[in-house]
């Protein structure tokens, strides 16, 4: 591997740019998507199709005063939004965008990503707690119980994948699915462990939506109940960072789903694998997440926990056991 000083710097700039562009324009994409689902136009005044809207929003957010309400825990209040961004950004380090575009191939990259995802939850917890606002505290408490409930089925499903591949490196997992969609984990036909893997995919996808606090699982910012949840007291760029963190988490979640189930950068027909396939897949997933958000009403915290404990966890456990049995038998 090339160990010159340029490689990390190039990747740093590249990933920062990728993350920044995504965080900003996914907001635009979401507004536009929501608007068209609701038969409106959405942003359209700033630039062609309102494409420069994120810049305008960014300027507006940055020029606003960062207000720190009295009675808040000053330091935590400032740290929380930054903490919302960092784990998502760091996760980019180990994500293989294609066979050779990956900043650091780490053997335990799966583990690293999930560890970082849990830290992201702390940002919300801290932000909510430090705000000293009752709505924010309720929201923080909800986030924790939700995250715990959804990380379990998510990790169980990931273990299934790890068992099939026999590796915890994202690079290896993606590599093992190369060459046509029939090799992808979701449709995997060879090797005996087959057919029901789409159940695992669904479980994983639902969990990743819940992990990123997106509707219909947006218990944390349920605006009709908790005003804006943990973000209630945030304004200007503090709010902006939380929003960007949320979108980055979605991007990371979509990347993970793509690598674990949809063959990473592999092309569905077996030729021309490359980064474009990867990007196409993650944006389709992101669009699906936006689409889901603007279709359903919000669930309620107990229903959400019920879904996790009564449906997702049993199913993922059965999935794990059956897969293990198949691996043993064949």
């Amino acid at each position, binding site marked *: 591997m090339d160990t010159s000083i340029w490689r990390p710097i190039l990747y740093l700039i590249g990933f920062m740019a990728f993350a920044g562009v995504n965080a900003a324009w996914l907001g635009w994409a979401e507004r536009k*998507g929501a608007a*068209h*689902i609701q*038969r*409106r136009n959405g942003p359209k005044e700033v630039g062609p199709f309102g494409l420069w809207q994120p810049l305008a929003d960014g300027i507006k957010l940055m020029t606003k005063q960062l207000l720190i309400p009295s009675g808040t825990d000053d330091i935590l209040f400032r740290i929380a939004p930054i903490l919302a961004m960092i784990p998502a950004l760091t996760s980019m380090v180990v994500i293989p965008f294609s066979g050779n575009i990956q900043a650091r191939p780490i053997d335990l990259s799966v583990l690293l990503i999930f560890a970082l995802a849990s830290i992201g939850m702390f940002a919300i917890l801290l932000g909510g707690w430090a705000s000293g606002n009752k709505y924010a505290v309720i929201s923080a408490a909800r986030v924790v119980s939700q995250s715990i409930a959804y990380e379990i089925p998510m990790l169980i499903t990931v273990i299934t994948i790890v068992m099939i591949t026999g590796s915890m490196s994202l690079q290896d997992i993606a590599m093992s699915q190369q060459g046509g969609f029939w090799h992808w984990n979701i449709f995997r036909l060879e090797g005996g462990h087959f057919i029901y893997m789409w159940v695992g995919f669904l479980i994983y996808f639902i969990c990743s939506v819940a992990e990123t606090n997106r509707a219909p699982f947006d218990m944390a910012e349920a605006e009709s109940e908790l005003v804006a949840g943990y973000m209630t007291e945030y304004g200007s760029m503090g709010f902006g960072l939380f929003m960007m963190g949320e979108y980055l988490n979605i991007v990371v979640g979509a990347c993970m789903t793509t690598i674990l189930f949809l063959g990473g950068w592999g092309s569905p027909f077996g030729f021309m694998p490359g980064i474009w396939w990867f990007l196409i897949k993650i944006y389709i997933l992101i669009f699906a997440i936006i*689409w889901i958000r*603007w*279709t*359903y009403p919000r669930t309620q915290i107990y229903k959400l926990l019920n879904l996790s404990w009564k*449906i997702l966890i049993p199913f993922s456990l059965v999935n794990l056991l059956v897969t293990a049995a198949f691996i043993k038998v064949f």
Partner: protein
Amino acid sequence: MSEYWNDIFGGTKSLLVGLGITAREFFKPVVTEQYPWEVPVMMPRFRGHIELVKNGETGRPNCIVCGMCMRNCPSGCITLTGKKPEGEKKKVLTKYELDFTKCSLCGSCIEGCNFNAIQFSKDYNLASTRKEDYIFDLLKRLEEQS
């Protein structure tokens, strides 16, 4: 137990149906009116603030300063004065002021007027940051219109 499976399968189906509906809507044209670029046409009976009606023959307002509109208004928005010029029988309107900040656009004034002297205008895009801008001098408005 059957309820459990029902929830899972029936529920998933209902969710998919929902996704189908929003997906179809996504590709349909927008239905909203792009306001500043597209100006709505007001219905003939639209109630804007009131305005004076001009007499087609004389070119002067129809109003004979009877004061019925003023008395009929529930909120006291209308103030008017008139005087009898030398040598004429009828009073002539000298000032007709509408305090639009209080007006509820109910139309009592118009119904009270027996001389077809006031009507609803079709102005709707009124905006201002100052209260004084909503004290309309309708007589002046009538002059400006002609």
